């Protein structure tokens, strides 16, 4: 089985060699790996920018960043993290690589469109960099709120255009995935036999198609306003700046589902494998993934912007309803672990960290979702801590877990477990030291996006700085540990973890057409009876 050449040795189209075999490839696995390197690059850049923000805030007064520079740094941190890391990370890397394999297909349905998406992604990144070198990077924050984004002198148009191009890449990926899941599934695979990671990508793709165009046109309006000053969003000319916020959050709230759903899909794959137990309530997880109520809560970002009493009543209610699908998933993961025969591995460790951190993020989200307390903590560090718990503690940790879970499948090499644990603990510990003080600072009233603060906030900011340092060191060492495994010989078996989904039926790394023999579709994707039998035989030495 291992003798078949992997996709690393067999480029497609076959006539290209060397760098061209990557840049002109039509293989979903190669495109996934190209995304991996691009996304990791941007992620590490944005991590370092985040470190700069934290370093500036460690000491009162101007430390080493001027106020304008600070604004640009946090904007750049936000724009890169949102548009170049969190949104594309899981779908574009692991979705591209594993979605076709998990449904028993040999590629996505539109391989050329897939490559185009990668180029659009790269172009978006280049345009974002280009905006740095003309009039300075925008200082608006990643939300580009009007009227400031229209009146500021910095180069908002270019940055907004970068976000537009990246949105295009994300839409095309979503379109490709939906078509692939509908039309290229193995003929024996029914809808209720699809692995949960693929299900989560299906739901994500719909959210991408539903929501991204709205933000695209909104960003185009910002550009039109900047160049022609038509007044659609300018109150001096009869426009309404709050409409911008509505249009922006109509996309950007569903966008948090684009960010978190694939992460939840990853956790739903990892937990049953290492508990050796079927996932608790498969159908409930599927149902809660495709719950679209998330599209109807956008105005909970705008309680202080002014809206009607009816809206103030409806939006908190809907927001609380939206918490239920996430709670269902957390409950299902914990119930899956209950009485399982748990095998501890780095991916499982990171998944457990995910559950804890995401739960904290979710519960503090309810504080913000209720209109009353939100008035108190709106635009404070509490909000910053909340979304870092959900987006970084959630999606970020799911991304690390996915890296550790699928790394041996993608590259055929196993990394050092001991080091992986140490760096993961350093990362998680640093995370807590970094963001918990921010909750307290926020409740005490420290506003976000300010480069300086009053003396009473000094202590919390000083300690948070150390947490950030541990966290950043942990991230770099963890990524380094993964990459140092690439120097070794290929040593990973086709199924190092005891997984049941189709990617574990093929060699590591997979061959060009993904499967050597026709894959066997299990009647239920999380039936571990065969795995348990195989491992107990190994234990007895049979």
């Amino acid at each position, binding site marked *: 089985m291992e003798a078949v050449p992997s996709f690393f040795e067999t480029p497609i189209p076959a006539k290209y060699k060397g760098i061209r075999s990557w840049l002109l490839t039509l293989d979903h696995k190669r495109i996934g790996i190209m995304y991996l390197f691009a996304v990791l690059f941007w992620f590490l850049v944005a991590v370092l920018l985040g470190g700069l923000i934290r370093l500036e805030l460690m000491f009162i007064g101007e430390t080493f960043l001027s106020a304008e520079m600070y604004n640009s740094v946090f904007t750049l941190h936000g724009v890169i993290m949102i548009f170049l890391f969190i949104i594309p990370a899981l779908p574009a890397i692991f979705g591209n690589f594993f979605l076709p394999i998990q449904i028993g297909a*040999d590629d996505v*349905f539109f391989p050329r469109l897939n490559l185009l998406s990668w180029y659009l992604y790269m172009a978006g990144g280049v345009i974002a960099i280009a905006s740095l070198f003309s009039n300075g990077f925008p200082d608006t924050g990643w939300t580009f709120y009007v009227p400031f984004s229209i009146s500021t002198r910095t180069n908002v148009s270019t940055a907004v255009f970068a976000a537009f191009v990246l949105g295009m890449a994300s839409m095309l990926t979503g379109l490709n995935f939906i078509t692939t899941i509908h*039309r290229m599934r193995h003929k024996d695979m029914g809808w209720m036999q699809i692995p949960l990671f693929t299900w989560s990508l299906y739901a994500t793709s719909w959210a991408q198609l539903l929501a991204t*165009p709205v933000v695209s*046109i909104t960003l*185009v309006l910002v550009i039109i306003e900047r160049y022609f*000053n038509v007044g659609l969003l300018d109150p001096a000319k*009869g426009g309404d700046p709050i409409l911008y916020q509505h249009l922006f959050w109509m996309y950007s709230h569903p966008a948090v589902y684009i960010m978190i759903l694939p992460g939840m899909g990853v956790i739903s794959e990892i937990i049953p494998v290492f508990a050796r137990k079927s996932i608790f309530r498969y159908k409930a997880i599927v149902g809660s993934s495709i719950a679209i109520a998330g599209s109807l809560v956008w105005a909970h970002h705008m309680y202080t912007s002014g809206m009607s009493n009816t809206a103030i009543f409806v939006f908190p209610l809907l927001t609380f309803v939206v918490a239920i699908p996430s709670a269902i998933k957390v409950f299902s993961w914990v119930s899956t672990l209950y009485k399982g025969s748990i095998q501890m591995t780095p991916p499982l460790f990171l998944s457990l960290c995910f559950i804890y951190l995401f739960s904290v993020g979710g519960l503090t989200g309810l504080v913000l979702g209720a209109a009353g307390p939100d008035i108190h903590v709106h635009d404070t560090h509490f909000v910053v801590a909340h979304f870092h718990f959900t987006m970084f503690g959630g999606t970020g940790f799911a991304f690390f877990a996915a890296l550790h879970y699928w790394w041996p499948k993608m590259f055929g090499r196993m990394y050092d477990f001991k080091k992986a644990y140490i760096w993961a603990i350093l990362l998680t510990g640093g995370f807590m030291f970094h963001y918990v003080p921010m909750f307290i600072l926020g409740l005490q009233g420290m506003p976000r996006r300010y480069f300086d603060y009053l003396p009473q906030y000094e202590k919390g900011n000083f300690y948070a700085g150390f947490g950030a340092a541990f966290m950043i060191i942990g991230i770099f060492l963890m990524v380094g540990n993964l990459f140092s495994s690439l120097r070794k010989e290929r040593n990973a078996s086709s199924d190092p973890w005891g997984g049941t989904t189709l990617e574990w039926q093929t060699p590591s790394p997979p061959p060009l057409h993904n499967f050597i023999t026709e894959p066997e579709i299990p009647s239920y994707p999380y039936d571990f009876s065969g795995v348990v039998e195989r491992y107990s035989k190994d234990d007895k030495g049979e």
Partner: protein
Amino acid sequence: MSSHPDESSKKLGMWLFLYTEIILFGGLFVLYAVYFSRYTLDFKEAGKELNRLLGLLNTVILLFSSFCVAAAVTAIQKKEKGRALAGLGAAILCGGAFLVNKYFEWSHKIEAGIYPNSEKLVAGSLDRICFSAFIISSPGCTASILLSG
């Protein structure tokens, strides 16, 4: 790589793409709806200042160009190269005609003082400005999409 001669999948992909385009303009429709409900009478009044004939002509041109492209696609499927090229050529001509038409329509508007930040509009009421913002920016988007296409 195995080829995918699956027509219905290609159609599915195309429909999904068209769907995103509809939503893209949906954002503008939302804005229009909000401002229309806010300044209903003025929007109606301002609408009367526009040239209906040119507007109608534009709609016909756009619909006909869509037909031409669709006919060209069918011709390609039937391997009739000449007809396909004719269809695409006609569509490009329609695009040109659209822009020429817009030129007349807009120069008419600009003469009448309806353009962003013109003296007439700045002196006039807020809602007129808002309406003109729409009639300039919405076809402006169409034209820029057409040009980039």
